[in-house]
């Protein structure tokens, strides 16, 4: 997991020895440690670690010489940054206008009922995260969902539950 605020190691190493910090460091170097590249750096950090925990935010703040309050402020402002670990599988249900008028609410309801979690939550066993998005831009095939980065169009509640079931049973991708 990400480091603590007391780390005092050299410029491109992290006391945990976690290789991902080397890659994060490279990403920051590409941006020349510019403070204005904070959002790019957070994107890179999330891609490497899956989510942004407090230790990771501390690390980014220190390396870009920004106050933690600023980094935390930016990380919490934008929807795409996660501060909690995501489930093994993620199902994004689009609730944009086109999907909405074509019954996205029924999809959400079906998934919520089956897995007893709300939008933005993860099942207790860490298997599935249910997320809503305000338009994926796939309106031509509404209602649309994204299951583990694969877009599915013209989805009906039954066929959503089948897709989810299949994905969860088959294990991690």
């Amino acid at each position, binding site marked *: 997991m990400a480091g603590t605020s007391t780390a005092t190691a050299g410029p491109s190493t992290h006391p945990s020895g976690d290789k991902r910090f080397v890659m994060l460091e490279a990403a920051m170097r590409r941006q020349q440690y510019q403070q204005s590249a904070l959002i790019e750096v957070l994107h890179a950090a999330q891609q490497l670690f899956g989510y942004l925990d407090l230790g990771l935010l501390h690390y980014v703040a220190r390396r870009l010489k920004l106050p933690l309050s600023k980094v935390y402020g930016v990380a919490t402002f934008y929807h795409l940054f996660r501060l909690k670990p995501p489930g093994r599988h993620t199902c994004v249900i689009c609730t944009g*206008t086109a999907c909405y008028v074509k019954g996205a609410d029924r999809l959400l309801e079906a998934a919520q009922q089956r897995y007893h979690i709300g939008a933005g939550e993860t099942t207790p066993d860490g298997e599935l995260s249910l997320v809503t998005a305000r338009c994926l831009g796939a309106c031509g095939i509404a209602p649309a969902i994204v299951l583990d980065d694969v877009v599915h169009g013209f989805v009906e509640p039954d066929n959503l539950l089948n897709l989810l079931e299949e994905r969860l049973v088959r294990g991690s991708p």
Partner: protein
Amino acid sequence: MDLHELNDIAADQRAAQKPCVIRCCMAAGCQSAGSVAVLKALQQAVTEAGKQNTVEVRSVGCLRLCCQGPLVQTDPDQRMFQKVRPEQAPSLVSTLDGRTTDAEPCDPNAPFFALQANVVLVNSGRIDPEQIEHYIAADGYAALARALTEMTPQDVVEAVTRSGLRGRGGAGYPTGVKWSLVARSKGDRKYVVCNADEGDPGAFMNRSVLESDPHSVLEGMAIAGYAVGASQGYIYIRGEYPLATQRLQTAIRQAGRLRLLGTHILNTAFDFRIDIRIGAGAFVCGEETALMASIMGERGTPRPRPPYPAESGLWGCPTLINNVETFANIPQIIRRGPEWFASIGTPKSTGTKVFALTGKVRNTGLVEVPLGTPLRVLVEDIGGGSPSGKIKAVQTGGPSGGCVPAHLLDTPVDYESLAAVGSIMGSGGLIVMDEANNMVDVARFFMGFCMDESCGKCIPCRAGTVQLHRLLTRILDRKATRRDLAVLEQLCGMVKETSLCGLGQTAPNPVLSTLRHFRHEYEALLRDE
């Protein structure tokens, strides 16, 4: 790279063109319908038929009829096929020899295609967006060459002004006026920003343009940079558009390699760099001051204007901000002339507009029409009407727009006419609704969206949208009285008048427009006092 070399690339590309081309749509819509497998199967089928010297299988951008994807079109006979499956590839290839196929045909002369215009989308579905040579062979970068070698920056601004082009992001501000403001602003550094933060739910025009023809946007930005005196451009793109981002990155790399971006472009003194900034999911970042804050790594909160970005934008420097589609129009205005552009559309709304046609309509997809086309042509002729038979309303402009009721479908689509019926042009989302859609519910949907997306900086928007959402829920729960309806209307006016930025100022629009045209639906849900 100079003009001759550019012409050589175009000539080589045209000469190398194989007699037959099978174009397979690889935009996001068709990809999610399985077009990647179709493309592979087509390539394999061509090889197996031994036709690799005469037939090119090309990965292209949007072929427009998204609901019938994966779409495939063949040249030169212009046949089109829909819902193509990989196993149909061999028979589809054999149609080039005049044989039959079981692939489902799609009529390219049907109203959906025949009534459309081809300005912004001229290359969409024709060229491979990941091959700069294809773009150059389609006269790409010729406009930049002409601007840099034959025109002064003032000439370029003048041409854009004469074309009558207005901002395609929604507000319709005259592009030429904006450019001349930035050109006249004093400053050592200036910036050009492309707003690709297409946040309106139900809109995918910009995504399609970027996925299908990314170089047209880069060329438009470079011309803008020359006209206003900027040497750095940024494209601020939604984090939700990975494919568009990847194609833009490829395009920027290719253009840089040919020195069509970077330093000494086309052997002139003009330098222009473009960097991508990826958004992180905040609708408010479509507002220009919030967008600039986000580019600078801050929370995307808007600030009061003036000063306008033209005077003080990124890092306090004069900044030109235009939408993707606005930039995509520029190369053709320069190449084909402002008079040509101004001859399309209406006198006050020139050119074409790309729409994302979705909702309860038979043909959903990407549509480009001359401005001034009646809404009815868009939804009934091009869209094929509603599958349920009766269109109730068409929503334009997303959460900032309004609903146009069925009896006003003859309204021409231009900036002024849509405003007159209580909606806006917006960025181009057109969502068709039928009798099954309750308009109060639709209004609450948009209010919920604005409530979630309010950045929280100013109170009218932060608190007002919550209260409006509560009132709408109360009405839908049949718990509201006539008094609540009066409060709703009053609060709409207040939020509209007193919010800091466009998000709050337009958030009440869906409520106001449904109240205007569908008041009876609200009243039917009220309980007696």
